[in-house]
């Protein structure tokens, strides 16, 4: 097959490209330029759009012995991922831009362009597995390395996208991938893992949002209110600094009467009110989610399986009911700190069934 290997400049995508090449595919390395103003050197936390990363990807392609190009997707990325990220925060939700990027950029804009240019598939360094199911369709499964598994951020991929995706690392534990990078002479073997949002250079989400949101957020400033008493406990300078379940950074002068820490329970973007309360108030067992995307055929009306509610989060046993507008999820194992905007990814054992965006949650014991 003719394969485009998306190469970030990191160790995983370099080994993935090398494996695809070794498997006999005709591989072309592509680095995606996603930032409109790429910084020369990475600062602090690892991003994936610096000139240095592009050079690392190029050197890896040299070592593997494959052609290498940079594709400029910065405009698409800004429109589809960065703008969406800001809109979601402005609306008081907590988006996951990595899912969005996979849905709109890596397995959409890049895949479309690759197919049009005569390629058959896109290979990435994601830790996940594509298997052929009993009916011949492509199934997405968790990686064997549970700690590195990235099937959650791929839960947005459709059958058509999966059929053209290759994840060469899904069967391998991460330490082994690093060893392999060293053995292959890939100089990125020791590069640290990336884990922050790539376009927020220093990892300071709230600072970035404060600077960028501008007029978009009507909520510069608001009250922090106690859920139990309705009392104003303090002020804040933007709801984008908060996410459901957050404990740190509330900067409340007074401790709660019971001496226990307070958590963010609710964010009201229009009034700017942030509600805080006790930890057990965070526990939810019912989730409503919309914008479902199914990896294959949509499931039957009700599915007994598991859901994962954040990247690297726990699995929760759940009953998922597919409705006309979205899905209703009843958690058999209740969850805490579930934020609207995050994705609920639905699994049947190791297989990803699909995903949906969380719009509302209900606390344990709340009337249906």
């Amino acid at each position, binding site marked *: 097959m003719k394969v485009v290997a998306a190469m970030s400049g990191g160790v995983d995508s370099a080994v993935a490209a090398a494996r695809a090449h070794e498997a006999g595919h005709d591989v072309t390395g592509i680095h995606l330029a996603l930032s409109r103003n790429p910084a020369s050197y990475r600062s602090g936390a690892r991003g994936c759009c610096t000139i240095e990363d592009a050079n690392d990807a190029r050197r890896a392609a040299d070592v593997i012995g494959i052609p290498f190009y940079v594709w400029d997707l*910065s405009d698409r990325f800004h429109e589809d991922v960065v703008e969406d990220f800001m809109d979601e925060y402005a609306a008081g939700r907590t988006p996951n831009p990595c899912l969005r990027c996979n849905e709109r950029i890596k397995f959409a804009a890049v895949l479309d*362009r690759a197919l049009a*240019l*005569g390629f058959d598939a896109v290979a990435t360094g994601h830790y996940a597995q594509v298997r052929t199911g009993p009916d011949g369709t492509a199934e997405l499964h968790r990686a064997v390395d549970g700690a590195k598994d990235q099937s959650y951020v791929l839960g947005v991929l459709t059958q058509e996208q999966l059929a053209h995706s290759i994840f060469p690392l899904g069967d391998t534990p991460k330490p082994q991938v690093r060893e392999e990078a060293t053995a292959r002479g890939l100089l990125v073997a020791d590069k640290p893992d990336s884990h922050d949002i790539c376009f927020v250079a220093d990892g300071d989400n709230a600072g970035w949002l404060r600077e960028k949101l501008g007029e978009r957020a009507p909520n510069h400033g608001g009250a922090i209110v106690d859920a139990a008493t309705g009392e104003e406990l303090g002020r804040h300078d933007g709801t984008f600094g908060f996410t459901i379940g957050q404990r740190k950074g509330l900067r409340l002068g007074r401790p709660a009467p019971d001496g226990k820490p307070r958590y963010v329970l609710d964010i009201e973007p229009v009034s700017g009110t942030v509600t805080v309360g006790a930890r057990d108030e965070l526990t939810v067992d019912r989730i409503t989610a919309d914008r479902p995307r199914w990896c294959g055929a949509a499931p039957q009306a009700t599915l007994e399986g598991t859901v994962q509610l954040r990247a690297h989060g726990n699995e929760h046993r759940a009953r998922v009911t597919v409705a006309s507008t979205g899905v209703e999820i009843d958690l058999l194992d209740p969850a805490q700190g579930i934020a609207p905007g995050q994705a609920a990814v639905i699994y049947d054992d190791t297989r990803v069934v699909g995903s949906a965006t969380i719009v509302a949650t209900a606390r344990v014991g709340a009337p249906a």
Partner: protein
Amino acid sequence: MDDAPQTVYLDHAATTPMLPAAVEVMTTHLGDVGNPSSLHASGRSARRIVEESRETIAQALNCRPGEVVFTSGGTESDNLALKGLFWSRHDADPSRVRILASAIEHHAVLDALHWLAEEEHAEVELVAVDSRGRLDLEQLRASIERDPASVALVSVMWANNEIGTLQPIEDVVAICATHGIPVHTDAVQAVGAVPVDFAASGVDALTLTGHKLGGPYGVGALVLRRELTLTPLLHGGGQERDIRSGTLDMPAIAAFATAVEHAVKCQPEYAERTTALRDTLIARVTEVVPDAHVHGDLDDRLPGNAHLGFPGCEGDSLLMLLDARGIECSTGSACSAGVPQPSHVLLAMGCDEEGARHSLRFTLGRTSSEADVDALVEAIGPAVERARGARS
């Protein structure tokens, strides 16, 4: 894996193969010991080769040997001319604050000017070009005449590196001469391709480089009129009349001189042969892709330059598809992190951003053949069709 097609090299404006005679001269001298600045026999021997090379180049370009200042190449020569002349002219008369240049200069000129504006308070004015990429002489004249005494220098390239348009250097010199304003020209693409006569041109400073005309990388020269003083960029051992300190790279200089001599001697024949091949390339490509069009001036043009627009294509998609077939060309524009930016040259010529992105530059050279054109003509149709499909 091993069926990689033979390379069809159509990027001679980026760099062109070294002349075998230049390779021979360079490799012969790589083993020689002797710093050209040393006083002993080995030093004198190295110095002799440097001075003979200087004389060879002077003869080829019609300047005096003492006017040839060896540098590390085009970028250094451009920086030396612009910064050095600005500093010395400004020091002599602080009212000289303006620098005028064409809007389509190479980045070695544009970015040096940008730096002078940012750091040294130079007032840089970029003079417009027409739709064929030719300097607007009336704008240049008007701009100078607004306040001639404030102009420190003028820089206009001899030939544009992207679209190949030759600039009216003679007219630029005539306009500037009236006011005693020195003229620098970046002739990196011109030497060996079109007639370049330093003395007859009347320019005060001229940039050339080795690797664009069959010499090695990393060596070039600034030809600088003897009467001009210039503030150096590099300070040290005082080589090159104190204008450019640094140990002279004798083997590279010798090979550079061999290449310049050959390129200038063979220029008429090269131009005739390459122009014919270039015209064939354009005719045959536009036969296959009827809406492809040439950018630049069809007559006043570098012999080897075919800069073509392919509407509906991304230049970089097309480049990748041709590269996969072993055909090497350029999008002709500067890169940032490997990402082609819309060409400032095409934008200055009035292309919109879309037009500036759908172009490819094919450049022929000494070693180009009819077979190269055949290979391109065979590949271009399917590549264009495919690249058009990739636009969403």
